[in-house]
């Protein structure tokens, strides 16, 4: 998977959610939601912000909550989702 896409996705997460972290410190496979170690601890409000961010950045609509939960599981999952939708 392209490092450029991962970098873009991490920057999107930080920018859209106004996080005070260096995008480079977000692990590719760390869970974005929940309280797991190494995760970002995002919640459903953040999920909606990510939906809006993905739509704005990549022109991809996420309309189904179930799809959103899978797509936003990690940076890797979100990159894979973007790659599939853009194909």
């Amino acid at each position, binding site marked *: 998977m392209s490092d450029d896409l991962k970098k873009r996705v991490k920057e999107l997460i930080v920018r859209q959610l106004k996080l005070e972290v260096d995008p480079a410190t977000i692990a590719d496979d760390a869970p974005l939601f929940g309280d797991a170690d190494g995760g970002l601890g995002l919640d459903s*409000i953040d999920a*909606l912000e990510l939906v*809006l961010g993905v739509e704005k950045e990549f022109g991809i609509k996420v309309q189904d909550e179930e799809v*959103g939960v899978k797509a936003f599981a990690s940076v890797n999952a979100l990159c894979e989702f973007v790659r599939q939708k853009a194909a």
Partner: protein
Amino acid sequence: MSFQPLPHAFPFRFADAVLERTGPAVGRVRASLTSNTEALRGAGFPAAILAELVAQSALLLQGGDAALGKKGFLAGISDFVVARLPAAGDVLTIDVAIAGRLGDTVKFDGVVTDAEGGAVARGSVTVKHGRA
């Protein structure tokens, strides 16, 4: 239109009439602020209540019918700018449009203006459907 879609009762119900409904949760709502409005007593109308007013307006527009009415609560505020605090006697107009949705979480953009069209506040609120 019934107010049953809103779970709030006086003095915490601020939106008081739907002026125009152009789509689900899109339209214009009115709020008349009287000196009896609880929030206006003492320190005046808190800025945060303007965000609550936008959320109530959105849910009122989205409910629309007592039988189908949806309940929800203000869960998030973002990019909310208050130009001036309202005062007793103000008749506010709240324009609401849906910005995005994921499951039971919905984000609305709102613009609050006074009777002369002057800016009062604008920003986004996120509402979760269901009860807190």
